[in-house]
């Protein structure tokens, strides 16, 4: 099976659509853990944090804007989904898609 490589910074800030094609937010973080397989200890991504910045979504591509917006609009409309890796379709890294509808996606605390 061909293994493809993608750069982390190409994923961060990307808009994510759900199964119905609706835009649900932007990738904020990739969480990884060590997995012991075939004797090798690799870090593998367990789930993607996707943040919804509401009206400010268009400018929330950069890390700084995301943090600033999170701090200011914590009360209004900011929402974050924690999407398991196997629910994410990265066949086209430029247009990541969640394989479930927005309502089914687990929300961060």
């Amino acid at each position: 099976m061909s293994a493809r490589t993608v750069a982390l910074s190409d994923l961060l800030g990307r808009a994510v659509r759900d199964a119905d094609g609706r835009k649900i937010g932007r990738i904020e973080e990739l969480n990884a853990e060590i997995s012991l397989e075939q004797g090798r200890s690799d870090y593998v991504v367990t789930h993607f944090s996707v943040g919804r910045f509401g009206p400010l979504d268009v400018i929330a591509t950069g890390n700084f804007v995301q943090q600033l917006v999170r701090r200011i609009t914590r009360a209004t409309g900011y929402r974050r989904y924690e999407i398991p890796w196997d629910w994410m379709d990265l066949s086209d890294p430029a247009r990541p898609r969640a394989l479930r509808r927005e309502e089914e996606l687990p929300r961060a605390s």
Partner: protein
Amino acid sequence: MKKWAEVALGVVTSIGGFLEVGSIATSAQGGAEFGYQLAWVLVLGTTSLAILMEMTGRLAAVSQRSYADLLRERFGYRFFLLPLVAVFVVSLLVVISEIGGVSIALQLATGIDFRWWAIPTALVGWFLLWRGNFTIVEQGTAMLGLVAISFAVGALKLHPVWPTLGRALLPSLPSHDRARYWYLAVSILGASISPYLYLFYSAGALEDEWTIEHLGVNRVTAGMGNVFGGVLAIASLVTAALVFAPRGIKVDRYEQIALVLATPLGRAGLVFFIMTLFVTCFGSTLEIVLAIAYLLAQGLGWNWSENLKPGKDARFATSYTVLILLASLPIAIGMDPLTLTNISMVATAASLPVTVIPLSVLMNDGDLLNTHVNGWPSNLALVVIALLSVVLLVAAIPLQLLGGG
């Protein structure tokens, strides 16, 4: 005991670092044209700087990383380029004016034109950075910076009218020449709230190996140091207000400013002015060149420390070498130092938002500062300073055109 020795030295450092070519020139111009009236701008500038320095010092002491490190780590390389380029360009302009200040001081003392002194100044400065460690650079120049107290002596000798000066510490609107008033206010703020000062201060906290125990030392150093610095800047404003304003003298060339001390203190006044200009500008040249090199090294992850031999941090050492020599060229070809100073002060004021606004995010980051995050007073102060920095950015260019040189 050792900690309080650090405090004393820290306070002294801030005096040396505070009064430099920018504050001497802008306070002299402000005093000459508006008497005491701009004193409140110095109070505003000094307090803002003290607050920003306390925060970047606390950030470094608690998180054990400098403000430049965190600008890159927390916001990513793409965002980091903004403060990197802004502070690099602005600080280089200021270093050029500082070398101009040193060269003018040597011209006043020897009569040899300032252009001939630019490259020798850069070479001596480079030698001190190359061979000296952080303590020598920081405290050596600061100790000598104490000659700046001559401004306070000069001001007292001129018997300022205290009630009027007291009232001038509160904001007031100009009666004439509004554009010029606000232009001078912006350049005074640019001279006092300089990004390289709090970037250097946070890197200095790491060089001095500060930890959480040093938070008290940090508050006193940032606070007291800047009070002294502010008082001396106000003193230089007062001397210009009492010597120049009544005679209608405007400051168009550095050479004129020496008269503000020669008038009250005679020949000693002239000598002390020359020494003050020389030492504070020379100290600031080293400090700012180091601040830029720290910003580059910390942002790109190179090895860096003034306490390491240059061979161990080759890119850091090469950076300050190239910077200090490069910065001496505009003065060597004869550009007017006062014009360069005025431009660099306004550019500094305009560059503030990119280094003040990110601080508001970092200072509330629990991962970094756990219990030492900002309380609501610090956050309120930071928001006010951030708004002020945006106003300065918007006002800088129009005021330079309307009220400029």
